[in-house]
């Protein structure tokens, strides 16, 4: 019961911030608003709330089910087709994460292990859990991943614009039409 009221307060803050972000047309308002609202209430009132794992799993169920419902019959054929180039892109992303981790450590910005765990683009929960298990500062790892998420998501419109320009200039035929605009 003692944890229920703080949890409800954080949930209310999260929902309110999400609706405000939606009104202000901030990108990804459910996630960004939910995150900012929860952090503001949790830190502002010193609540130190822990979200029950069941709630996290229910959230994943809702998101995953919504995604799964959009998958059409030819999806599985596409999966096989894109596995090779996708794996190559993944290898490059993970390799870049390792390289940045090494660079951050070499420049003295972060401890080597914290740098690796902070800059590998994986699940926040997995990286933080691994870091804490090794005795490193989970706060640094969380912060770095939050910066990653915001950087990546907020720069997305610009990246989409560049991709469309690349396609128009170097790839598409002049007569070609089709879904291009983000």
């Amino acid at each position, binding site marked *: 019961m003692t944890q229920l009221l703080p949890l409800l307060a954080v949930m209310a803050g999260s929902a309110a911030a999400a609706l405000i972000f939606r009104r202000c047309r901030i990108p*990804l308002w459910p996630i960004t608003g939910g995150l900012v*609202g929860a952090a503001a209430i949790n830190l502002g009132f010193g609540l130190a709330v822990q979200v029950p794992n069941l709630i996290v799993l229910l959230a994943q169920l809702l*998101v995953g089910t*919504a995604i799964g419902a959009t*998958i059409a019959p030819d999806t599985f054929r596409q*999966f096989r087709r894109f596995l090779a180039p996708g794996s190559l892109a993944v290898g490059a992303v993970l390799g870049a*994460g390792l390289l940045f981790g090494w660079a951050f450590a070499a420049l003295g910005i972060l401890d080597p292990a914290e740098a690796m765990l902070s800059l590998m683009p994986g699940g926040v929960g997995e990286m933080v859990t691994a870091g804490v298990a090794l005795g490193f500062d989970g706060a640094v790892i*969380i*912060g770095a991943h939050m910066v990653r998420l915001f950087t*990546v998501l907020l720069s997305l419109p610009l990246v989409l614009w560049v991709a469309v320009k690349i396609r128009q200039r170097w790839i598409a035929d002049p007569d070609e039409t089709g879904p291009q605009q983000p």
Partner: protein
Amino acid sequence: MEEDLTAGDAGSHMTRLLGIGKLLLGGVSVGSVLELLGVPAGMLIGSVVGAALVNQPWTRRMRPSSLPIVARQIGLTTVGLAAGVLLTVDSLLNTAVIALPVVLAYLALTALNLVFVTVLMSRYQVDPVTAVLAVTPGGLAEVTSIAIDKGAQVAVVLSVHAVRLFSLVLVILPILLLVLS
């Protein structure tokens, strides 16, 4: 006539509810199995697979269903909430110190990713939105939700991100832990 319309509306409403129930049942079934097996993001990935499987037209009578958009928005808000409560004053202060180098690092990675975006568009005839979202190093839930909103090929985006997550957690992370410990 009005009674027929009302009965029709009620039938349609019931059909929709049954469809939503079918999706959630499929999602929770596979998601629970993967979660119990300790698969990374097991519930998320499992619910995608389970909902996709039950939503295919296995018989002629079967029609695809969809989840109300508000359900996905609630799920995403809760994902944001779960991340937000992890932040502490210490993490915010530490983040302020490293924020700029992290931003620059990921902008550099984004520039590198444009190479793969170009390959996907030119060699595999993928549209720009799908190509960008497939290689964006964001969270699985966030990126695939954007893919739905922007009409991208969700399957392509999802498969690349699933490979990334599995590779990282099942291969890279154990090696890192071994080396770092």
